[in-house]
């Protein structure tokens, strides 16, 4: 028996539960709903890729995102974390107008990509979504061959005219997604026949095949095992040399591992944005602290 075991009162957990006043979730939520809410940390960067100002998002009468202002730097990996329903995915989907597909969804405020207002009514969303690609939680390859999955985007966007060019794009994209060696001998087999991790990398290959500038990832690893997750994270690190990446994740360790900056959302509000190292060692906001240390969920 160690000294610690010998000296530790048996019922520490019980007494701790009984005798202390809990930091009530309601109190914390009250802190979050203050009307003069202001995001702490560094929201803005020089020469941002994305510049979001006072974004409000509504689903019908219900407001899901409140006054979010945030810059996302070029070739930066930014992670968005927060409890379920905090608006982080909704916010992410605003960045390539994915919310347009939901009828009752309304987006207010200014969202600019390289200084261009992406909610301009004259803007065509198809090229926008080519510039700002997206990877979803569940790998969703088309029910087509591995080759066609990657070739589809470049074809419909008219990026290539010759078969050899298309071949090259498919190979480069699969290589960049770290999948080439595993699939090069079976490009004509269906993409749905791959393992979960491979399917997700196929979706990433499909996304980067149209040469986007930004990749949005909505919990890209939550359906994957730790090894497939590690591959994707490694991939994120490599891709960040050429792409701006915004990742929504429920895994705080993942946010800590892959991102340069971390944004913490709470009840639709952006509470804190800071360098990831700072967020995970000494966050500025008490709600960030409470969330990342598991004091409420």
């Amino acid at each position, binding site marked *: 028996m*160690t000294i610690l075991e010998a000296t530790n009162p048996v019922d*520490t957990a019980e007494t701790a539960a009984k005798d*202390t006043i809990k930091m009530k979730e309601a109190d914390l939520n009250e802190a979050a709903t203050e009307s003069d809410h202001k995001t702490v940390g560094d929201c803005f960067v020089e020469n941002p890729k994305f510049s979001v100002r006072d974004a409000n998002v509504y689903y019908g009468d219900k407001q899901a995102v409140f006054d979010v202002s945030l810059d996302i730097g070029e070739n930066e990996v930014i992670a968005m974390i927060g409890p379920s329903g905090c608006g982080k995915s909704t916010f992410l989907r605003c960045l390539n107008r994915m919310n347009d597909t939901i009828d009752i969804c309304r987006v207010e405020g200014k969202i600019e990509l390289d200084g261009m207002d992406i909610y301009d009514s004259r803007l065509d969303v198809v090229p926008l979504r080519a510039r700002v690609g997206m990877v979803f939680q569940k790998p969703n390859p088309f029910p087509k061959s591995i080759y066609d999955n990657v070739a589809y985007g470049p074809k419909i966007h008219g990026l290539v005219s010759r078969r050899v060019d298309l071949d090259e794009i498919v190979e480069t994209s699969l290589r960049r997604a770290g999948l080439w060696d595993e699939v090069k001998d079976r490009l004509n087999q269906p993409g749905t026949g791959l393992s979960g991790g491979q399917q997700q990398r196929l979706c990433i290959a499909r996304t980067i095949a149209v040469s986007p500038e930004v990749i949005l990832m909505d919990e890209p690893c939550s359906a994957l095992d730790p090894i497939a997750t590690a591959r994707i994270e490694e991939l994120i690190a490599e891709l960040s040399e050429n792409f701006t990446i915004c990742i929504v994740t429920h895994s705080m360790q993942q946010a800590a591992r892959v991102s340069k900056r971390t944004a913490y959302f709470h009840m639709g509000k952006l509470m804190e944005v800071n360098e990831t190292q700072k967020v995970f*060692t000494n966050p500025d906001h008490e709600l960030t*602290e409470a969330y990342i240390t*598991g*004091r409420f969920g």
Partner: protein
Amino acid sequence: MDSLHLDQHISQQYNADLEKLRTALLEMGGLVEDQLADATRAIETADGELAEKVLKTEKKVDKFEIDIDKECTTILARRQPAASDLRLVLMVTKAIRDLERMGDEAAKIAKMALALNDDGESPRGYVELRHLAAQVGKLVNVALDAFARFDVYAAIKVVRDDKDIDIEYRSSLRELITYMMEDPRSIKRVMNIMWALRSLERIGDHARNIAEHVIYLVHGMDVRHISPSEIEKQLEKQR
């Protein structure tokens, strides 16, 4: 209970684990405080038995260090602590190192007590020793208290008071050296006291380290090698 909300995790077991770390560190600190008090008293009263007791306690202190270290490793591996929890675990791994060294120094003082019993009483230095020991004992106490209460101001006071102890130590040394020059036959015996004084001064340094860890724990600020007034300035800036 405290400003760090150690007891407010969703996981009760996690609360208990962190609380256990805190309690264990304080217990280890208590042992070292006893060692220090006993060792200096052993010199003053030429009490060989008390000196032996100090040497024996050192084994307990060492075991505390190993056990707490193990507990920290377990928490790091199983909980992946973040923010203040992470700072607490990091701080504890460092603080136990300091406490263990303090225990070593206390044991050295006890050995000097035994040496004085063998070589004969020193003609000088007891007053200086008592004086410095009282100051250092207080310093250790305040440092541990600062940890127990997560009290940054107490911690800054420790950093500041350690400077006074260094000054006191140097002036005692000068005095004893002068005495030895006048009476070279006393060198061996006075040296025993001087070694004990040196150990006291080292213990003060370790207490200051612990105080600096407390400031890191509470504010996430690394204040090593910074003057107390600079620390206060930085704290003011953070507020």
